[in-house]
């Protein structure tokens, strides 16, 4: 092995620099193909998970249990969370399903659909929401909602024809408000429990837009105003977003479940709250990424094989001479394996520097503008280590086989070039 290393190091040091650079470059590209391509594919979905957490759920999301209108025991739960040392902020949200009428004066003609949509009206505390989600960053037009606002509403862009990304999609059942913009009045109405209708007019103060549906498809007023509209259960909220350490979220969920024993509520970490279809897409993208990585691995192994094979064939005479003067075939094989490993290690090292030093920070700052997410590069040290191990194993085999083929040839035939 020592002689193999000796030969390999000298060959690498004194053979053509261009060849070494070219092979190393191929190995870098292979590494990037292994880590970055699949990382970007997965990152398109993971970006949406990240946005869901940052724009809506926090690290823990508590919502009404199935079949319930609100989170039971809400006031005590809010007090529990506010006093929890690991909770840095919470945002309780009131939500009610409403009908929103866009045209207050013109009644629809015969065979005309009314300019009306069904929408979730959410009452928020703007200051608390700002701490959890930085809500003001979603304001695309108009002015932000403020604590003392009355009769003012922020509308999700995807519910207004002028701003919606789906306006030209003609999706069956999708209704959008037409001829509605900032400063216009809309009428909100919803059924009162026990009969009757609550109705109130709001002025559109701003348009909010995000790749998170919970922002772009809802209407927002202050929680204080919504509480006034609600006839009953004024203190019971429909959702609470909780900000805590990401790593602590599971523990907090468990603690909260213990606290809420006997009270109905759905308590989930942000990862649990993500819709399963998004998880399925993530799995699909991961499989696609792995398939692409496999192709990259095959290409890399063939490249290394060809390079080592040509290298060994052109040096067949010298291999014969080495065997002739008593250098063991194993030592000669090791020299080629070391060379292959060198290409793999250097290529991987450069790939790691590029990935974690340049590409990952770049995509964190400038994510890919994907329609339903801001795509990031998902690359972990553990994942990269596994891929490096696979790459090196493949490289090692690709270096060993051609060396073995050439070294096993008859010594004298090699020396005489027969």
């Amino acid at each position, binding site marked *: 092995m*020592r*002689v193999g290393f*000796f*030969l390999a190091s*000298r*060959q690498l*040091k*004194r*053979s053509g620099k261009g060849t070494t650079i070219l092979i190393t470059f191929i190995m870098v590209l292979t590494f990037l193909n292994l880590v970055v391509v699949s990382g970007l594919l997965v990152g398109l979905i993971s970006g949406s998970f990240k946005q869901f957490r940052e724009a809506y759920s926090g690290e823990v999301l508590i919502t009404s249990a199935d079949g319930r209108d609100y989170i039971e025991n809400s006031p005590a739960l809010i007090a529990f969370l506010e006093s929890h040392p690991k909770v840095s902020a919470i945002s309780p949200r009131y939500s009610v399903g409403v009908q929103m009428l866009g045209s207050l004066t013109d009644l629809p003609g015969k065979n005309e659909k009314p300019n009306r949509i069904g929408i979730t009206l959410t009452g928020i505390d703007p200051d608390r929401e700002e701490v959890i989600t930085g809500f003001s960053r979603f304001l695309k037009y108009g002015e932000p909602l403020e604590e003392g606002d009355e009769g003012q509403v922020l509308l999700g862009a995807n519910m207004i024809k002028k701003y919606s990304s789906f306006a030209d999609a003609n999706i069956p059942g999708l209704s959008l408000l037409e001829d509605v913009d900032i400063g216009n009045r809309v009428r909100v109405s919803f059924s009162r429990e026990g009969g009757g209708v609550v109705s109130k007019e709001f002025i559109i103060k701003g348009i909010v837009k995000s790749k998170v549906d919970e922002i772009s498809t809802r209407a927002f007023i202050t929680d204080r105003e919504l509480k006034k509209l609600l006839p009953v259960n004024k203190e019971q909220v429909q959702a609470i977003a909780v900000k805590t350490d990401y790593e602590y979220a599971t523990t907090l969920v468990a603690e909260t479940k213990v606290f809420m024993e006997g009270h109905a509520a759905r308590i989930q970490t942000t990862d649990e709250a993500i819709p399963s279809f998004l998880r399925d897409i993530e799995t699909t993208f991961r499989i696609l990424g792995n398939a692409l990585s496999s192709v990259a691995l095959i290409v890399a192994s063939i490249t290394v094989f060809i390079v080592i094979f040509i290298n060994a064939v052109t040096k067949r*005479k*010298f291999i014969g*001479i*080495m*065997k*002739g*003067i*008593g*250098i*063991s*075939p194993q*030592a000669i094989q090791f020299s080629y394996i070391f060379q292959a490993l060198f290409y793999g290690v250097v290529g991987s090292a450069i790939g790691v520097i590029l990935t974690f030093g340049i590409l990952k920070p770049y995509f964190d700052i400038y994510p890919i503008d994907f329609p339903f997410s801001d795509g990031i590069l998902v690359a972990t040290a553990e994942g990269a280590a596994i891929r490096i191990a696979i790459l090196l194993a493949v490289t090692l085999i690709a270096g060993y086989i051609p060396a073995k083929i050439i070294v096993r040839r008859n*010594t*004298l035939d090699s*020396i005489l070039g027969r």
Partner: protein
Amino acid sequence: MIKIEKLVKTYGSGELELVVLKSLTFEVKAGEFVAIIGPSGSGKSTLLYQLSLLDEPTSGEVTLDGIRTGELSMQEKTDIRLGKLGYVFQDYALLPELTALENVALPIIMQGHTMQESYVKASLALERIGMVDKKHNVPSQLSGGQQQRVSIARAIAHEPQILFADEPTANLDSANGIRVMEAFRDLHTKSNQTIIMVTHEPEYAAFAGRIITLVDGTIVSDERKKDLP
């Protein structure tokens, strides 16, 4: 030291069979400087390959230090080549990526010596053939004669019992050829090195103490000289 008995080497079979060595028998004793000469195609290089364990005879026996080499495995032959034999090839056969010092040190490292020991021994070998000042040059920075002398240093650095040389002056001009032959003679006279050399040039064969002449695979003469030129 080395003995061959009824050594036959053929290539091909049937009508295409070519008998290159025809039942050769002779012995080389320790300390001898033997030149094998003969015209092209006489089988002298083929004989050297059998003697140096680079090839296997079709029949007959090569015995080295009492060891019947026909019974050895490939690995055992490799070990013997590394430990007991040294080679000087016609075209120098230095590894192009290694310096002169590294080329010479390679077999010594392979023997298990430390790098430092190997380089010391290699330097000594280069010094013996007057090439120590070129030890950091790679082969492409050396002339043909210098490369062949480095090749000799590599062949003797691990102190082999027998040094084999296959047409060592074939690619050299007359002046360099003489210098190489003088190096062989010095090795023989000063270190009592056993040398078996193939050449087709009588003036270089004259440096040897014994000349075996081969024609068509048969020994036609085997002469010992009392005095070196």
